[in-house]
């Protein structure tokens, strides 16, 4: 069994893993990081989106062995000292979630979107989130939340922004 070394949300893990183990199952079952859920088996829904070396990936479509030597951030790694990340806060403020199952992936994909474009238009947000499905909100408030977070994250200083 290959041995991997992965940083996840700031902690380092070394584990022997079966090659077939998916990153999302590694996170959930080996590390207990159940904040990242699984919503499909075809990488359509995006619920399992995490950041790997700062870029969004669907953790159901990455093998744990492929994460060897990488730095992974999940929704559980956002925020500082219990203070939520501006993106998390914006989802709350704009009522951008109902059942919340898509929310971890939606938040991580949104962060990736802002890394690329700190001030996206409504259409750009909709396009940027095309890989993440939500069944509750009709997306309208998600779009608002991302733009709200973008605006807050563009504000200089004052607020700790991770990652």
């Amino acid at each position, binding site marked *: 069994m*290959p041995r991997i070394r992965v940083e996840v949300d700031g902690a380092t893990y070394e584990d022997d893993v079966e*090659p077939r183990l998916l990153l999302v199952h590694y996170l959930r079952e080996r590390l207990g990081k159940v904040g990242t859920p699984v919503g499909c*088996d075809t990488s359509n829904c995006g619920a399992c989106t995490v950041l790997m070396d700062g870029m969004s990936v669907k953790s159901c479509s990455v093998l744990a062995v*492929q994460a060897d030597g990488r730095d992974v951030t999940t929704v559980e790694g956002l925020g500082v000292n219990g203070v939520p990340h501006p993106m998390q806060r914006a989802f709350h403020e704009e009522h951008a979630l109902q059942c919340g199952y898509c929310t971890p992936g939606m938040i991580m994909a949104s962060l990736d*979107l802002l890394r690329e474009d700190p001030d996206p238009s409504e259409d750009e947000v909709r396009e*940027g989130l*095309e*890989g993440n499905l939500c069944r509750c909100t009709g997306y309208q408030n998600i779009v608002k939340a991302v733009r709200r977070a973008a605006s807050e994250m563009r504000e200089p200083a004052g607020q700790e922004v991770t990652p």
Partner: protein
Amino acid sequence: MIPATFDYVRPASLDDAVTALSDAGEDAKVLAGGQSLMPLLRMRLAIPDALIDLDRVGGLREIRDAGDAIVIGAMATHYQVIRDPLVREHAPLVAETTETVADPAVRHRGTFGGSLAHADPAGDLPAVALALDAVFLVRSVRGEREIPASEFFVDWMTSAMEPDELLVGVRLPKLGAGWGVHYEKFHRTAQAWAIVGVACAVRRSGDGIEDARVALTNMGPAPVRAGAVEVAVKGGPASEDAFRTAAAQAAAGTEPPADLHGSPEYRTHLATVLTARALAAAAG
């Protein structure tokens, strides 16, 4: 679901990779970005004995200038391709089309070479490679060879590569000045595959069309070049009427598939409409 078990090999060099592939035999699969392969593994539609992961093979992600062509390394990600200055300058059709592939997270992992080697007739990039007369650079323990795009896509999910061969890169002739490009993708939702796609490049000269390349996505078991359209527009005016007339032949000789989203008849119709639109957009 959970993939069946497999052996995992992560070669560090190209030599090691082709050796591993040769050693692993026919039931091995090459893991590039894995964005098409992983769902197949999870659904157990693919049950390989071994995966050969190219992730750490040096040099395969490089995109370089090769004089009258550029070479895109097989492991260059879609994300990388879209932003690469060489691609944007010399193969803008590749950049534009790649932006329509899947979604951002998939584009971070998915690779140019992987998409082409997968040879899915609904994939967007094969038609582009065909339209641009790409050359596939292939390697095995037996040596290197080049396969022109016109010979690379053999059948449904089947390329001309032998089981022990690895795609290392794709050479794309530079288009040069005067070319306009467009990829017209027609799909039901953002995530859905193209029902039909048209990859198009035209060189204008004044009010006329000097040269044209047109290839179609999902109009057969492999991408097809719409040769009749190219002939019809070449030397003609750059007008919507001319494009429509030429595009009427877009589906000639194709064998469009039937699926949930369209019958062969509908695809045939779409090919003509979309080809006219693609020509017009490319001609700007």
